[in-house]
Protein backbone atom coordinates (compact mmCIF):
# COMPACT_ATOMS: atom_id res chain seq x y z
CA UNK A 1 0.00 0.00 0.00
CA UNK A 2 1.19 3.47 -0.91
CA UNK A 3 0.64 5.95 1.92
CA UNK A 4 1.31 9.63 1.39
CA UNK A 5 1.11 11.75 4.55
CA UNK A 6 1.02 15.49 4.67
CA UNK A 7 3.28 16.16 1.71
CA UNK A 8 4.18 19.74 0.77
CA UNK A 9 6.28 20.78 -2.19
CA UNK A 10 7.72 24.23 -2.65
CA UNK A 11 9.72 25.79 -5.43
CA UNK A 12 11.63 28.68 -3.93
CA UNK A 13 9.06 30.80 -2.09
CA UNK A 14 6.13 29.35 -3.99
CA UNK A 15 4.43 26.41 -2.33
CA UNK A 16 2.77 24.24 -5.00
CA UNK A 17 1.38 21.56 -2.72
CA UNK A 18 0.12 21.98 0.86
CA UNK A 19 -0.11 18.99 3.19
CA UNK A 20 -1.57 16.43 0.82
CA UNK A 21 -2.40 12.93 2.12
CA UNK A 22 -3.60 10.05 -0.03
CA UNK A 23 -3.48 6.26 -0.08
CA UNK A 24 -3.45 3.78 -2.94
CA UNK A 25 -3.89 0.05 -2.42
CA UNK A 26 -3.02 -2.80 -4.73
CA UNK A 27 -5.82 -3.77 -7.10
CA UNK A 28 -7.48 -0.38 -7.22
CA UNK A 29 -7.42 2.62 -9.54
CA UNK A 30 -7.29 5.95 -7.78
CA UNK A 31 -7.68 9.09 -9.84
CA UNK A 32 -6.61 12.60 -8.86
CA UNK A 33 -8.63 15.25 -10.64
CA UNK A 34 -7.56 18.83 -10.88
CA UNK A 35 -7.00 21.70 -13.25
CA UNK A 36 -3.69 22.60 -14.82
CA UNK A 37 -1.25 23.83 -12.20
CA UNK A 38 -3.22 22.41 -9.28
CA UNK A 39 -0.15 20.48 -8.12
CA UNK A 40 -0.92 17.02 -9.51
CA UNK A 41 2.40 16.53 -11.27
CA UNK A 42 4.28 17.96 -8.29
CA UNK A 43 2.70 15.28 -6.12
CA UNK A 44 3.63 12.40 -8.41
CA UNK A 45 7.17 13.64 -8.94
CA UNK A 46 7.66 14.10 -5.19
CA UNK A 47 6.55 10.53 -4.52
CA UNK A 48 8.82 9.15 -7.27
CA UNK A 49 11.91 11.01 -6.00
CA UNK A 50 12.04 13.31 -9.02
CA UNK A 51 10.91 16.59 -7.57
CA UNK A 52 12.89 19.71 -8.46
CA UNK A 53 11.42 21.46 -5.44
CA UNK A 54 11.74 21.06 -1.69
CA UNK A 55 9.61 18.20 -0.42
CA UNK A 56 8.35 17.89 3.16
CA UNK A 57 6.16 15.19 4.65
CA UNK A 58 6.26 11.43 4.39
CA UNK A 59 5.40 8.73 1.92
CA UNK A 60 5.88 5.01 2.19
CA UNK A 61 5.31 1.94 0.11
CA UNK A 62 5.21 -1.48 1.77
CA UNK A 63 6.47 0.22 4.94
CA UNK A 64 9.58 1.60 3.19
CA UNK A 65 10.08 5.37 3.26
CA UNK A 66 10.12 7.05 -0.15
CA UNK A 67 10.77 10.75 0.43
CA UNK A 68 14.45 11.64 0.13
CA UNK A 69 15.21 8.59 -2.01
CA UNK A 70 16.62 8.83 -5.51
CA UNK A 71 14.34 7.62 -8.34
CA UNK A 72 16.30 4.38 -8.79
CA UNK A 73 15.75 3.45 -5.12
CA UNK A 74 12.06 4.30 -5.34
CA UNK A 75 11.66 1.92 -8.30
CA UNK A 76 13.19 -0.88 -6.22
CA UNK A 77 10.53 -0.44 -3.53
CA UNK A 78 7.86 -1.24 -6.11
CA UNK A 79 6.69 2.04 -7.56
CA UNK A 80 6.86 2.97 -11.23
CA UNK A 81 6.10 6.40 -12.69
CA UNK A 82 5.09 7.15 -16.25
CA UNK A 83 5.70 10.90 -16.29
CA UNK A 84 3.99 13.47 -18.43
CA UNK A 85 5.73 13.36 -21.79
CA UNK A 86 6.25 9.61 -21.16
CA UNK A 87 9.96 9.64 -20.25
CA UNK A 88 10.89 6.91 -22.70
CA UNK A 89 14.22 6.40 -24.49
CA UNK A 90 13.33 7.91 -27.86
CA UNK A 91 16.40 6.85 -29.80
CA UNK A 92 16.36 3.26 -28.49
CA UNK A 93 14.20 0.44 -29.83
CA UNK A 94 10.97 -0.85 -28.31
CA UNK A 95 12.75 -4.02 -27.23
CA UNK A 96 15.56 -2.07 -25.56
CA UNK A 97 13.05 0.14 -23.74
CA UNK A 98 11.26 -2.92 -22.39
CA UNK A 99 14.51 -4.65 -21.42
CA UNK A 100 15.63 -1.51 -19.60
CA UNK A 101 12.29 -1.53 -17.78
CA UNK A 102 13.40 -4.78 -16.17
CA UNK A 103 16.66 -3.21 -14.96
CA UNK A 104 15.69 -3.02 -11.26
CA UNK A 105 16.86 -6.03 -9.25
CA UNK A 106 13.27 -6.70 -8.13
CA UNK A 107 12.18 -7.14 -11.77
CA UNK A 108 14.83 -9.57 -13.01
CA UNK A 109 13.26 -12.83 -11.86
CA UNK A 110 9.87 -12.08 -13.40
CA UNK A 111 11.22 -10.50 -16.59
CA UNK A 112 9.80 -13.14 -18.93
CA UNK A 113 6.39 -13.20 -17.28
CA UNK A 114 6.20 -9.43 -17.31
CA UNK A 115 7.17 -9.28 -20.97
CA UNK A 116 4.44 -11.77 -21.80
CA UNK A 117 2.01 -9.64 -19.77
CA UNK A 118 3.02 -6.48 -21.64
CA UNK A 119 2.74 -8.10 -25.06
CA UNK A 120 -0.66 -9.53 -24.16
CA UNK A 121 -1.80 -6.08 -23.10
CA UNK A 122 -0.28 -4.35 -26.13
CA UNK A 123 -0.12 -6.94 -28.93
CA UNK A 124 0.90 -4.19 -31.33
CA UNK A 125 4.33 -4.04 -29.71
CA UNK A 126 5.02 -7.67 -30.61
CA UNK A 127 5.99 -6.94 -34.23
CA UNK A 128 7.59 -3.61 -33.37
CA UNK A 129 10.36 -4.79 -31.06
CA UNK A 130 13.09 -3.46 -33.36
CA UNK A 131 11.44 -0.11 -34.10
CA UNK A 132 13.01 3.09 -32.76
CA UNK A 133 10.49 4.46 -30.30
CA UNK A 134 10.42 8.06 -31.41
CA UNK A 135 9.37 7.06 -34.94
CA UNK A 136 6.12 5.69 -33.48
CA UNK A 137 2.78 7.42 -33.06
CA UNK A 138 1.81 9.04 -29.76
CA UNK A 139 -0.50 6.20 -28.83
CA UNK A 140 2.18 3.59 -29.52
CA UNK A 141 4.75 5.53 -27.54
CA UNK A 142 2.32 5.60 -24.63
CA UNK A 143 2.09 1.78 -24.86
CA UNK A 144 5.88 1.55 -24.69
CA UNK A 145 5.96 3.87 -21.68
CA UNK A 146 3.32 1.91 -19.76
CA UNK A 147 4.79 -1.40 -20.91
CA UNK A 148 8.21 -0.37 -19.69
CA UNK A 149 6.79 0.62 -16.31
CA UNK A 150 5.07 -2.78 -15.98
CA UNK A 151 8.40 -4.48 -16.78
CA UNK A 152 9.76 -3.14 -13.48
CA UNK A 153 7.24 -5.31 -11.55
CA UNK A 154 5.63 -2.44 -9.68
CA UNK A 155 3.08 -2.83 -6.90
CA UNK A 156 1.85 0.68 -7.65
CA UNK A 157 1.87 2.33 -11.07
CA UNK A 158 1.79 6.14 -11.25
CA UNK A 159 0.61 7.80 -14.45
CA UNK A 160 0.80 11.52 -15.13
CA UNK A 161 -1.80 12.59 -17.72
CA UNK A 162 -1.48 9.49 -19.88
CA UNK A 163 -4.34 10.56 -22.16
CA UNK A 164 -2.68 13.84 -23.10
CA UNK A 165 -2.43 14.20 -26.87
CA UNK A 166 -4.27 10.95 -27.65
CA UNK A 167 -7.26 10.73 -29.98
CA UNK A 168 -10.65 9.85 -28.39
CA UNK A 169 -10.45 6.28 -29.65
CA UNK A 170 -6.91 5.80 -28.31
CA UNK A 171 -8.06 7.33 -25.00
CA UNK A 172 -10.78 4.73 -24.67
CA UNK A 173 -8.30 1.98 -25.41
CA UNK A 174 -5.87 3.41 -22.87
CA UNK A 175 -8.44 3.51 -20.07
CA UNK A 176 -9.61 -0.02 -20.90
CA UNK A 177 -6.01 -1.18 -20.60
CA UNK A 178 -5.56 0.57 -17.27
CA UNK A 179 -8.58 -1.34 -15.96
CA UNK A 180 -6.95 -4.57 -17.16
CA UNK A 181 -3.72 -3.64 -15.38
CA UNK A 182 -5.66 -3.06 -12.18
CA UNK A 183 -7.27 -6.48 -12.56
CA UNK A 184 -3.81 -8.11 -12.49
CA UNK A 185 -3.50 -6.86 -8.90
CA UNK A 186 -1.46 -3.73 -9.48
CA UNK A 187 -2.48 -0.45 -7.88
CA UNK A 188 -2.86 2.47 -10.27
CA UNK A 189 -2.62 6.14 -9.30
CA UNK A 190 -3.78 8.26 -12.16
CA UNK A 191 -3.57 12.00 -12.55
CA UNK A 192 -5.99 13.20 -15.19
CA UNK A 193 -7.85 16.08 -16.71
CA UNK A 194 -10.12 13.69 -18.56
CA UNK A 195 -12.52 13.33 -15.61
CA UNK A 196 -15.33 11.50 -17.34
CA UNK A 197 -13.34 8.56 -18.64
CA UNK A 198 -11.02 8.27 -15.67
CA UNK A 199 -13.90 8.26 -13.15
CA UNK A 200 -15.57 5.56 -15.26
CA UNK A 201 -12.74 3.10 -14.61
CA UNK A 202 -11.54 4.35 -11.20
CA UNK A 203 -12.45 2.92 -7.83
CA UNK A 204 -11.77 6.07 -5.81
CA UNK A 205 -10.80 9.62 -6.49
CA UNK A 206 -9.40 12.80 -4.96
CA UNK A 207 -10.01 16.39 -6.01
CA UNK A 208 -7.09 18.77 -5.87
CA UNK A 209 -7.30 22.54 -6.15
CA UNK A 210 -4.48 25.03 -5.70
CA UNK A 211 -2.34 22.45 -3.97
CA UNK A 212 -5.00 21.30 -1.49
CA UNK A 213 -7.09 18.15 -1.45
CA UNK A 214 -10.65 19.52 -1.58
CA UNK A 215 -12.60 16.31 -1.87
CA UNK A 216 -12.35 12.54 -1.84
CA UNK A 217 -14.67 9.63 -2.31
CA UNK A 218 -15.65 6.64 -4.38
CA UNK A 219 -15.53 7.21 -8.10
CA UNK A 220 -19.30 6.75 -8.34
CA UNK A 221 -19.99 9.37 -5.65
CA UNK A 222 -17.61 11.81 -7.27
CA UNK A 223 -19.17 11.31 -10.69
CA UNK A 224 -22.60 12.04 -9.19
CA UNK A 225 -21.47 15.00 -7.12
CA UNK A 226 -23.03 18.17 -8.60
CA UNK A 227 -19.94 20.24 -7.74
CA UNK A 228 -17.67 17.78 -9.52
CA UNK A 229 -20.02 17.63 -12.48
CA UNK A 230 -19.93 21.38 -12.74
CA UNK A 231 -16.17 21.74 -12.35
CA UNK A 232 -14.83 18.70 -14.20
CA UNK A 233 -17.57 17.01 -16.17
CA UNK A 234 -19.54 20.00 -17.45
CA UNK A 235 -16.64 21.30 -19.47
CA UNK A 236 -16.42 18.12 -21.48
CA UNK A 237 -20.13 17.80 -22.33
CA UNK A 238 -21.26 19.88 -25.20
Amino acid at each position, binding site marked *: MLEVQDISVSYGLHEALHGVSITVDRGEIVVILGANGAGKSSLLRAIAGMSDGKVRGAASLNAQALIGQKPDKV*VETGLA*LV*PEGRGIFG*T*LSVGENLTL*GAYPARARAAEKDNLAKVLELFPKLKDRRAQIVRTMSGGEQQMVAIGRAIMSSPDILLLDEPSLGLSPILCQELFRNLAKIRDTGMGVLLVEQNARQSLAIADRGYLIENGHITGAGSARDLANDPAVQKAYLGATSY
Partner: protein
Amino acid sequence: MDVVISGLLLGGAYALVAMGLNLQYGVARIMNLANGEILILGGLAAFWAFVSFGLSPLLTLVIVAPLAFIGSWAMYKLLLRPLVRRAKTRGQLEVDSILATFGISFFLVGVMVSLRAEYFTYSFLATPVHLLGTTVAANRLVAALIAAAIGGALYLWLNRSRPGMAVRAVAVSPEAAGLVGINVDRVSAFAFALGGAVTALGGCLISTFVTLDASSGVLFTMKALIIVIMGGVGDIRGAIIAALILGLVETAVASIIDPGLTLVAAYAIFLAVLLFRPQGLFGQGNA
Protein backbone atom coordinates in the same frame (compact mmCIF):
# COMPACT_ATOMS: atom_id res chain seq x y z
CA MET B 1 46.53 2.70 -52.09
CA ASP B 2 49.36 3.65 -49.75
CA VAL B 3 47.33 6.59 -48.58
CA VAL B 4 44.18 4.53 -48.06
CA ILE B 5 45.90 1.85 -46.00
CA SER B 6 47.92 4.19 -43.78
CA GLY B 7 44.91 6.48 -43.47
CA LEU B 8 42.66 3.68 -42.28
CA LEU B 9 45.30 2.43 -39.83
CA LEU B 10 45.70 5.91 -38.36
CA GLY B 11 41.91 6.30 -38.25
CA GLY B 12 41.61 3.07 -36.28
CA ALA B 13 43.67 4.48 -33.42
CA TYR B 14 41.76 7.77 -33.59
CA ALA B 15 38.48 5.88 -33.38
CA LEU B 16 39.46 4.34 -30.07
CA VAL B 17 40.38 7.70 -28.57
CA ALA B 18 37.13 9.23 -29.83
CA MET B 19 35.18 6.37 -28.24
CA GLY B 20 36.76 7.35 -24.95
CA LEU B 21 35.72 10.98 -25.28
CA ASN B 22 32.29 9.91 -26.48
CA LEU B 23 31.69 7.92 -23.30
CA GLN B 24 32.75 10.88 -21.18
CA TYR B 25 30.79 13.51 -23.10
CA GLY B 26 27.83 11.45 -24.26
CA VAL B 27 27.11 9.65 -20.99
CA ALA B 28 28.69 11.59 -18.13
CA ARG B 29 28.07 14.91 -19.98
CA ILE B 30 31.59 16.07 -19.24
CA MET B 31 33.35 17.70 -22.19
CA ASN B 32 36.76 16.55 -21.05
CA LEU B 33 39.43 18.87 -22.42
CA ALA B 34 42.04 16.86 -20.49
CA ASN B 35 41.24 13.86 -22.67
CA GLY B 36 44.40 14.37 -24.75
CA GLU B 37 46.56 14.52 -21.61
CA ILE B 38 45.14 11.18 -20.45
CA LEU B 39 46.14 9.85 -23.86
CA ILE B 40 49.66 11.23 -23.46
CA LEU B 41 49.89 9.73 -19.97
CA GLY B 42 49.12 6.36 -21.57
CA GLY B 43 51.87 7.02 -24.12
CA LEU B 44 54.30 8.10 -21.40
CA ALA B 45 53.59 4.90 -19.47
CA ALA B 46 54.28 2.79 -22.56
CA PHE B 47 57.51 4.73 -23.25
CA TRP B 48 58.71 4.54 -19.67
CA ALA B 49 57.97 0.82 -19.29
CA PHE B 50 59.69 0.09 -22.60
CA VAL B 51 62.80 2.17 -21.96
CA SER B 52 63.22 1.26 -18.28
CA PHE B 53 62.18 -2.40 -18.26
CA GLY B 54 62.04 -3.35 -21.91
CA LEU B 55 58.36 -4.07 -21.43
CA SER B 56 56.36 -4.40 -24.64
CA PRO B 57 53.74 -1.64 -25.02
CA LEU B 58 51.26 -4.41 -25.67
CA LEU B 59 51.83 -5.65 -22.11
CA THR B 60 51.76 -2.12 -20.72
CA LEU B 61 48.20 -1.89 -22.04
CA VAL B 62 47.09 -4.40 -19.44
CA ILE B 63 48.53 -2.28 -16.62
CA VAL B 64 47.50 1.09 -18.02
CA ALA B 65 43.80 0.23 -18.43
CA PRO B 66 42.97 -0.34 -14.74
CA LEU B 67 45.21 2.54 -13.60
CA ALA B 68 43.59 4.98 -16.03
CA PHE B 69 40.17 3.68 -15.00
CA ILE B 70 40.85 4.32 -11.32
CA GLY B 71 42.53 7.66 -12.00
CA SER B 72 39.66 8.90 -14.17
CA TRP B 73 37.11 7.64 -11.68
CA ALA B 74 38.83 9.57 -8.89
CA MET B 75 39.04 12.66 -11.12
CA TYR B 76 35.28 12.45 -11.70
CA LYS B 77 34.40 11.82 -8.07
CA LEU B 78 36.69 14.46 -6.57
CA LEU B 79 36.83 17.24 -9.15
CA LEU B 80 33.81 16.91 -11.44
CA ARG B 81 31.06 15.47 -9.23
CA PRO B 82 30.69 18.80 -7.33
CA LEU B 83 30.06 20.51 -10.68
CA VAL B 84 27.45 17.91 -11.64
CA ARG B 85 25.71 18.38 -8.30
CA ARG B 86 25.42 22.13 -8.52
CA ALA B 87 24.61 22.39 -12.24
CA LYS B 88 20.97 23.21 -12.77
CA THR B 89 21.05 22.71 -16.52
CA ARG B 90 23.05 20.68 -18.95
CA GLY B 91 24.43 23.85 -20.51
CA GLN B 92 25.79 25.05 -17.19
CA LEU B 93 27.51 21.73 -16.58
CA GLU B 94 29.05 21.91 -20.02
CA VAL B 95 30.57 25.35 -19.42
CA ASP B 96 31.76 24.41 -15.91
CA SER B 97 33.25 21.12 -17.02
CA ILE B 98 35.06 22.72 -19.97
CA LEU B 99 36.72 25.23 -17.64
CA ALA B 100 37.54 22.65 -14.98
CA THR B 101 39.00 20.08 -17.36
CA PHE B 102 40.93 22.81 -19.19
CA GLY B 103 42.61 23.54 -15.86
CA ILE B 104 43.18 19.86 -15.20
CA SER B 105 44.86 19.53 -18.59
CA PHE B 106 47.43 22.20 -17.65
CA PHE B 107 48.06 20.45 -14.37
CA LEU B 108 48.67 17.15 -16.13
CA VAL B 109 50.96 18.77 -18.71
CA GLY B 110 52.99 20.24 -15.85
CA VAL B 111 53.27 16.89 -14.13
CA MET B 112 54.35 15.18 -17.33
CA VAL B 113 56.92 17.85 -18.21
CA SER B 114 58.49 17.36 -14.78
CA LEU B 115 58.61 13.61 -15.41
CA ARG B 116 59.95 13.80 -18.95
CA ALA B 117 60.60 17.07 -20.75
CA GLU B 118 61.96 15.52 -23.96
CA TYR B 119 60.20 13.54 -26.66
CA PHE B 120 59.03 10.03 -25.78
CA THR B 121 61.13 8.37 -28.48
CA TYR B 122 61.36 4.62 -28.63
CA SER B 123 61.32 2.05 -31.37
CA PHE B 124 58.87 -0.82 -31.20
CA LEU B 125 58.05 -3.14 -34.11
CA ALA B 126 59.40 -0.60 -36.60
CA THR B 127 59.67 -3.27 -39.26
CA PRO B 128 58.06 -3.03 -42.67
CA VAL B 129 55.11 -5.27 -43.43
CA HIS B 130 53.66 -5.86 -46.87
CA LEU B 131 49.95 -5.42 -46.92
CA LEU B 132 47.71 -5.36 -50.01
CA GLY B 133 50.53 -4.30 -52.30
CA THR B 134 51.83 -1.55 -50.06
CA THR B 135 54.30 -1.35 -47.22
CA VAL B 136 53.39 -0.22 -43.72
CA ALA B 137 55.20 -0.24 -40.40
CA ALA B 138 54.29 -3.26 -38.28
CA ASN B 139 53.61 -1.04 -35.26
CA ARG B 140 50.90 0.87 -37.12
CA LEU B 141 49.24 -2.34 -38.21
CA VAL B 142 49.35 -3.89 -34.73
CA ALA B 143 48.06 -0.69 -33.14
CA ALA B 144 45.13 -0.51 -35.56
CA LEU B 145 44.25 -4.19 -35.05
CA ILE B 146 44.28 -3.88 -31.27
CA ALA B 147 42.30 -0.67 -31.45
CA ALA B 148 39.73 -2.46 -33.60
CA ALA B 149 39.56 -5.36 -31.15
CA ILE B 150 39.07 -3.09 -28.13
CA GLY B 151 36.58 -0.90 -29.98
CA GLY B 152 34.65 -3.91 -31.23
CA ALA B 153 34.44 -5.42 -27.76
CA LEU B 154 33.25 -2.11 -26.35
CA TYR B 155 30.64 -1.78 -29.08
CA LEU B 156 29.29 -5.26 -28.43
CA TRP B 157 29.23 -4.69 -24.70
CA LEU B 158 27.33 -1.42 -25.10
CA ASN B 159 24.77 -2.94 -27.46
CA ARG B 160 24.32 -6.48 -26.21
CA SER B 161 24.70 -6.49 -22.44
CA ARG B 162 22.34 -5.07 -19.87
CA PRO B 163 24.97 -2.90 -18.13
CA GLY B 164 26.03 -1.60 -21.54
CA MET B 165 22.42 -0.82 -22.31
CA ALA B 166 22.20 1.08 -19.02
CA VAL B 167 25.17 3.20 -20.09
CA ARG B 168 23.43 4.05 -23.36
CA ALA B 169 20.20 4.72 -21.52
CA VAL B 170 21.88 7.40 -19.39
CA ALA B 171 23.28 8.93 -22.59
CA VAL B 172 19.80 9.12 -24.12
CA SER B 173 17.95 10.42 -21.07
CA PRO B 174 19.23 10.62 -17.49
CA GLU B 175 15.70 11.29 -16.25
CA ALA B 176 14.21 8.22 -17.93
CA ALA B 177 17.21 6.19 -16.75
CA GLY B 178 16.34 7.05 -13.15
CA LEU B 179 12.77 5.93 -13.78
CA VAL B 180 13.88 2.43 -14.73
CA GLY B 181 16.01 2.09 -11.62
CA ILE B 182 19.40 2.99 -13.04
CA ASN B 183 21.69 4.75 -10.58
CA VAL B 184 22.58 7.66 -12.87
CA ASP B 185 25.42 8.94 -10.65
CA ARG B 186 27.14 5.61 -10.54
CA VAL B 187 26.74 4.89 -14.25
CA SER B 188 28.05 8.37 -15.12
CA ALA B 189 31.15 7.90 -12.97
CA PHE B 190 31.67 4.46 -14.49
CA ALA B 191 31.32 5.75 -18.07
CA PHE B 192 33.75 8.58 -17.37
CA ALA B 193 36.29 6.14 -15.92
CA LEU B 194 35.81 3.70 -18.79
CA GLY B 195 36.27 6.55 -21.27
CA GLY B 196 39.54 7.50 -19.55
CA ALA B 197 40.78 3.92 -19.68
CA VAL B 198 39.93 3.59 -23.38
CA THR B 199 41.67 6.90 -24.13
CA ALA B 200 44.82 5.87 -22.25
CA LEU B 201 44.88 2.58 -24.16
CA GLY B 202 44.70 4.62 -27.37
CA GLY B 203 47.68 6.64 -26.10
CA CYS B 204 49.72 3.48 -25.47
CA LEU B 205 49.01 2.30 -29.01
CA ILE B 206 49.61 5.66 -30.69
CA SER B 207 52.95 6.08 -28.88
CA THR B 208 54.29 3.05 -30.78
CA PHE B 209 54.23 4.95 -34.08
CA VAL B 210 53.90 8.66 -33.26
CA THR B 211 56.54 10.50 -31.28
CA LEU B 212 54.69 12.20 -28.44
CA ASP B 213 55.79 14.71 -25.86
CA ALA B 214 54.26 16.09 -22.69
CA SER B 215 52.50 18.94 -24.45
CA SER B 216 51.04 17.24 -27.51
CA GLY B 217 47.83 16.24 -25.73
CA VAL B 218 45.86 19.24 -26.93
CA LEU B 219 46.24 18.14 -30.56
CA PHE B 220 44.64 14.82 -29.73
CA THR B 221 41.89 16.48 -27.71
CA MET B 222 41.05 18.57 -30.76
CA LYS B 223 41.09 15.55 -33.05
CA ALA B 224 38.87 13.53 -30.72
CA LEU B 225 36.53 16.50 -30.49
CA ILE B 226 36.36 16.80 -34.28
CA ILE B 227 35.58 13.09 -34.58
CA VAL B 228 32.91 13.12 -31.88
CA ILE B 229 31.17 16.15 -33.35
CA MET B 230 31.49 14.80 -36.90
CA GLY B 231 30.19 11.37 -35.90
CA GLY B 232 27.43 12.74 -33.73
CA VAL B 233 27.62 12.85 -29.93
CA GLY B 234 26.92 9.44 -28.41
CA ASP B 235 26.95 7.70 -31.80
CA ILE B 236 29.69 5.07 -31.70
CA ARG B 237 29.23 3.96 -35.31
CA GLY B 238 29.36 7.55 -36.49
CA ALA B 239 32.54 8.14 -34.47
CA ILE B 240 34.27 5.15 -36.05
CA ILE B 241 33.46 6.31 -39.56
CA ALA B 242 34.40 9.91 -38.74
CA ALA B 243 37.72 8.70 -37.30
CA LEU B 244 38.50 6.76 -40.46
CA ILE B 245 37.63 9.80 -42.59
CA LEU B 246 39.91 11.99 -40.48
CA GLY B 247 42.73 9.44 -40.71
CA LEU B 248 42.32 9.21 -44.47
CA VAL B 249 42.18 12.95 -45.05
CA GLU B 250 45.16 13.65 -42.79
CA THR B 251 47.23 11.00 -44.51
CA ALA B 252 46.18 12.14 -47.98
CA VAL B 253 46.99 15.78 -47.28
CA ALA B 254 50.30 14.89 -45.66
CA SER B 255 51.51 12.67 -48.48
CA ILE B 256 50.02 14.47 -51.48
CA ILE B 257 50.20 18.15 -50.49
CA ASP B 258 52.35 18.88 -47.45
CA PRO B 259 52.78 17.20 -44.01
CA GLY B 260 52.54 20.62 -42.38
CA LEU B 261 48.94 20.94 -43.50
CA THR B 262 47.45 17.94 -41.66
CA LEU B 263 46.06 20.08 -38.84
CA VAL B 264 44.69 22.56 -41.36
CA ALA B 265 42.91 19.71 -43.10
CA ALA B 266 41.48 18.47 -39.80
CA TYR B 267 40.08 21.89 -38.98
CA ALA B 268 38.74 22.34 -42.49
CA ILE B 269 36.71 19.15 -42.06
CA PHE B 270 35.56 20.34 -38.65
CA LEU B 271 34.37 23.65 -40.08
CA ALA B 272 32.58 21.96 -42.95
CA VAL B 273 30.77 19.61 -40.54
CA LEU B 274 29.74 22.46 -38.24
CA LEU B 275 28.45 24.45 -41.20
CA PHE B 276 26.61 21.73 -43.07
CA ARG B 277 25.88 18.87 -40.66
CA PRO B 278 26.10 20.21 -37.09
CA GLN B 279 24.08 17.20 -35.86
CA GLY B 280 26.84 14.87 -37.09
CA LEU B 281 27.12 12.66 -40.16
CA PHE B 282 24.31 10.33 -39.09
CA GLY B 283 22.59 12.51 -36.50
CA GLN B 284 18.85 12.93 -36.81
CA GLY B 285 18.68 16.28 -35.09
CA ASN B 286 17.50 16.63 -31.51
CA ALA B 287 15.73 13.73 -29.88
